[in-house]
C-alpha cells in the first residue's frame, strides 16, 4: 500500500481486481451485475407464481411452496435487485457527477458490496432447509413469521441484519461523499438531481434500516427467547410488529423510487434538449416526499383497526404526498414541452416511467382513501398498484439509466435497434402483466393465494402471458449489455448531444481513475 507513487495505474489483474477493489467504478459494476442476477432470480420466482396462476386450480406447485415463492420474490426484488441496482448507479455516477476522485470511504464501500452475495446466499439457501424457506410474505408479519414461521426464519433474520449493515454503510458513504467530496464550485444547488435524490435517499436509509434491524431482533427474541413483543398473551401486540415494520417499510418504498426520480430528471432534459424545468422545486419536492414518508406508514394497516383519528391523519398525510409528486410529474412534462425531442432507448424508458409511474401514483391515492382501502386491502389491486410504481417505475428508470450511461461505462454505443426492441417488448409485457390485476383486485381476488375462483380466469391468463413476455424480454437487455461491452460504435465523451454535467466531460469509457484533481470550476454549470 505505497501510496504516493503509483496513482495512475489501471485495475489489478484477475479475480483480485474484483475481490479486493476499492474503485467506485468496479464496485458500481459489481453492484449492477449482482442486482441483475438477483433480478433474474426474483423474476424466475415471479414466473413460478404466474405459471401457477395461469389457470384456476393447483397446477405446478403446492401452496406452501407458492408462499415461499411470493415471499422470496418480494425479498429478492426489494433487497437484492432494486436497492443494490440504485447503489450501483450511485457508486458509478455520484463521484463522476460531483467531480470526486472516488467514494469517500473506498474500503467500506467494498465491504457494503461483498456482504450482499453472502447475505443472499444465506437467504436463498433457506429454500433448501428443513421446513422450507420464509413463507409469510415479504412483509413477514408476526405471528406468521414468529409463532408459525419455519425454522429457517432465523437465517432470514440474520440475512436481514447483515443486509441492513450493508445498506447503512453504503448510505454513510453516499452522504460523506456528497457532503465532503464535491469539487470546488459544485455547490449544493448545482448538483445534478440524481445526486440530490441519492443524498436524501441515504438519509432515509440511515433512519429506517436500524428500525428494521430492531424489528427483526424482536422477532428473533420472540422466537428463541420467549419474549412477548408480538404476542398479546404476554401483553405485546402483533399490530406492534406492523407499526414497526411499516415505519421502516414506507420510507423503504421511497428509497426505491427517489433515485429513479433523479435518473429521469437527468435523461429527459438530455433528449428534450432543454434545461430541466423547475430544478429548485424538484429538490424541495424530493425533500418533502422524504419527510412525508415518515408520517404515513399506517396507511398500510387501515384494516387492522386503528382509532378514527389515526385513520384520518394517515389518510390525509398520505394524500399530501401526491402534491410534491405532482410537482415532479409536472416538471418532467414541462421539460419536454416544446423541446427538440428524440426518442432513443433511455428516453423511451424515461417517458414510459413518467406515464406508468403516474398510473401507479393514482392508484396509490385511491388506496390512501381509508374507507375505500377497506375493500382494496390485500387484493390484487394493491399488487397492481405497487408493481406499477416498482416495475415500470423503479425498474424502468434503472433500464433507462443503464442505456443512458452504458456508453460512458463501456466506451461503445449499444445496439439501438435491440434497445428499442427491449423497450417495446417490456412496455407491452409490463402492461399486459399488471393492468389486468387492477380489475382482478377490484373484483375481489385476494393476493398471495395459489388458487382463485373461476370468474378471475381470463384476466389471470392475460397477466401470466404478459409476465412471461416481460420476463423473457429482459434477456435482450443482458445480450445488449454484453454486446456493448465487447465492442461497437465508439462512443464520444459527450455521448448524447444534449447531455449536461461533469460525467460527460471525461472520456468514454471513463478512465479507471477520474478527477484525482478537481475539474475546472468553469465546467460546473447550474442545472
Amino acid at each position, binding site marked *: 500500500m505505497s501510496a504516493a507513487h503509483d496513482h495512475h495505474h489501471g485495475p489489478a489483474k484477475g479475480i483480485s481486481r474484483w475481490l479486493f477493489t476499492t474503485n467506485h467504478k468496479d464496485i458500481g459494476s459489481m453492484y449492477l451485475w449482482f442486482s441483475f442476477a438477483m433480478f433474474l432470480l426474483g423474476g424466475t420466482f415471479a414466473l413460478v407464481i404466474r405459471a401457477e396462476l395461469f389457470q384456476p386450480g393447483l397446477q405446478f406447485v403446492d401452496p406452501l411452496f407458492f408462499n415461499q415463492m411470493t415471499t422470496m420474490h418480494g425479498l429478492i426484488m426489494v433487497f437484492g435487485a432494486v436497492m443494490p441496482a440504485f447503489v450501483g448507479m450511485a457508486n458509478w455516477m455520484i463521484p463522476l457527477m460531483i467531480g470526486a476522485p472516488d467514494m469517500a470511504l473506498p474500503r467500506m464501500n467494498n465491504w457494503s458490496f461483498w456482504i450482499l452475495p453472502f447475505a443472499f446466499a444465506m437467504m436463498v439457501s433457506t429454500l433448501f432447509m428443513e421446513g422450507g424457506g420464509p413463507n409469510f410474505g415479504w412483509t413477514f408479519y408476526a405471528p406468521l413469521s414468529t409463532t408459525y414461521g419455519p425454522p429457517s426464519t432465523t437465517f432470514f433474520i440474520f440475512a436481514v441484519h447483515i443486509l441492513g449493515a450493508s445498506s447503512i454503510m453504503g448510505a*454513510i458513504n453516499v452522504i460523506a461523499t456528497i457532503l465532503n467530496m464535491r469539487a470546488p464550485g459544485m455547490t449544493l444547488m448545482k448538483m445534478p438531481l440524481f445526486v440530490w435524490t441519492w443524498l436524501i435517499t441515504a438519509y432515509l436509509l440511515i433512519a429506517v434500516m436500524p428500525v428494521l434491524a430492531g424489528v427483526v431482533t424482536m422477532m428473533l427474541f420472540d422466537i428463541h427467547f420467549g419474549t412477548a413483543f408480538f404476542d398479546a398473551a404476554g401483553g405485546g401486540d402483533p399490530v406492534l410488529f406492523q407499526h414497526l415494520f411499516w415505519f421502516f417499510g414506507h420510507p423503504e418504498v421511497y428509497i426505491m423510487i427517489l433515485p429513479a426520480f433523479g435518473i429521469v430528471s437527468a435523461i429527459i432534459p438530455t433528449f428534450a434538449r432543454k434545461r430541466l424545468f423547475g430544478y429548485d422545486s424538484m429538490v424541495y419536492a424530493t425533500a418533502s416526499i422524504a419527510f412525508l414518508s415518515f408520517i404515513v406508514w399506517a396507511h398500510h394497516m387501515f384494516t387492522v383497526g386503528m382509532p378514527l383519528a389515526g385513520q384520518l391523519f394517515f389518510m390525509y398525510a398520505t394524500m399530501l404526498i401526491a402534491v410534491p409528486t405532482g410537482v415532479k410529474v409536472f416538471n418532467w412534462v414541462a421539460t419536454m414541452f416544446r423541446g427538440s425531442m428524440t426518442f432513443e432507448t433511455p428516453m423511451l424508458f424515461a417517458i414510459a416511467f413518467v406515464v406508468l409511474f403516474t398510473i401507479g401514483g393514482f392508484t396509490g391515492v385511491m388506496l390512501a382513501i381509508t374507507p375505500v382501502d377497506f375493500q382494496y386491502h390485500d387484493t390484487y389491486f394493491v399488487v397492481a398498484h405497487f408493481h406499477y410504481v416498482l416495475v415500470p417505475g423503479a425498474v424502468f428508470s434503472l433500464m433507462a439509466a443503464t442505456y443512458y450511461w452504458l456508453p460512458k461505462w463501456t466506451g461503445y454505443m449499444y445496439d439501438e435497434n435491440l434497445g428499442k426492441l427491449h423497450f417495446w417488448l417490456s412496455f407491452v409485457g409490463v402492461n399486459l402483466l399488471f393492468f389486468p390485476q387492477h380489475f382482478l383486485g377490484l373484483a375481489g381476488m385476494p393476493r398471495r393465494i395459489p388458487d382463485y375462483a373461476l370468474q378471475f380466469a381470463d384476466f389471470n391468463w392475460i397477466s401470466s402471458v404478459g409476465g412471461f413476455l416481460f420476463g423473457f424480454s429482459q434477456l435482450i437487455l443482458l445480450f445488449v449489455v454484453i454486446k456493448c461491452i465487447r465492442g461497437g460504435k465508439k462512443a464520444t465523451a459527450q455521448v448524447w448531444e444534449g447531455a449536461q454535467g461533469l460525467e460527460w466531460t471525461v472520456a468514454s469509457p471513463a478512465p479507471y481513475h477520474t478527477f484525482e484533481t478537481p475539474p475546472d470550476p468553469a465546467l460546473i454549470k447550474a442545472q
Partner: protein
Amino acid sequence: MASESSHETYYVPEQSKFPFFASIGLFLTVFGLGGVLNDISAGASVTGSTWTALIGFTILSFILFQWFATTIRENHAGLNSAQLKRSYVWGMGWFIFSEVMFFAAFFGALFYVRQLSVPWLGGEGDKGSAGEFLWPQFQAAWPLLVNPDPSAYPNPHEGLNVTSWSPAFFAGYLPFWNTVILITSSVTLHFAHVALKAENRKRLIQWMSVTVGLGVIFLGLQALEYVEAYGHYGITLDSGIYGSTFFLLTGFHGFHVTLGTFMLTVMLIRCIKGHFKPNDHFGFEAAAWYWHFVDVVWVGLFIFVYCL
C-alpha cells in the same frame, strides 16, 4: 494531471483485502449463530454451528483489528488529508445516528405497549373491546406483573418496588447509582479530552483510566441488577412484555456500553502509546462521541424504563 499546490490528494487505497474477508467473517458468524439458536430451540447438539460462529467471529475480529491498525498507520504516515479526515467525521456521526434509530425502535415498542396495547388488552380506550374478547379478567398495569395469559408467559413475582422517591430509596437503588456513574464517566472523559488538547499525557491517562473503570463498574452493577431481576423479582425474558422491553432495552444498552468500554480501553492504550496529537485525535473523539451517546441513551432508559 499536474498536482496543484492548493489541492491535497485524497488518499484512495489501491486495493484492500479487508472488506472481502470481513464479509466472510461476518457471514460465518451469523450463519453459525443462526444454527446455534435453531439447534437449541430444536433441542439438538450445537457443536458444529458453535465452531462456525466462533471461527467467523475470530476472522471478523482479526480483520477489523488489522483494518483499524492500517487506518491508524495511514494517518501516522501523513496520507490523510484534511478532507479525508472530514469523511471519517461524517461517517462516525451518521453511524451514531443510525444507532439512535435502532434504540428508537425499542423505545417506540415500549411506548406503544405502555400507552396503547396493554390498556387495550385491559379493556380501555379505542380498541378496548380486544380485552373483553380475549382475556376479560386481565387488568392493565405497568409494570405488568400479571400477564394476560400467565400459562403462556409466567408472571413475575409480586413485590416489585413501587418507586417512593425518598432519599433513602435512592441510596439503595442500583439504577440511580448507575446513572450517577455513567454521567460522571462522561465528565471524566471530557476532562481526558481537555488534558489531551493540553498535551498533558499523565493527566490524560489518569482520566481515561477512571472513565474505563467507571464503565466496568457500570457493567458490574448492571449484571447485579439482572441477577436481582431474575432471582428476586422473577422478571425474565419470557415473563411477558415488561421483561421483554426491560431486557432488550437495557440489554442492548449494556451491549453498547461494553462496546464503548472496549473502544475507550483501546483509546487508553493508544494514549499510553502516544498516538494522539492535540490537533489530530479523531479516533479518540469518535470513541468519546460514542460514549456520550450511550450515556444519553441511558438517561432515556432511566427516565422511561425505571422512573416513569
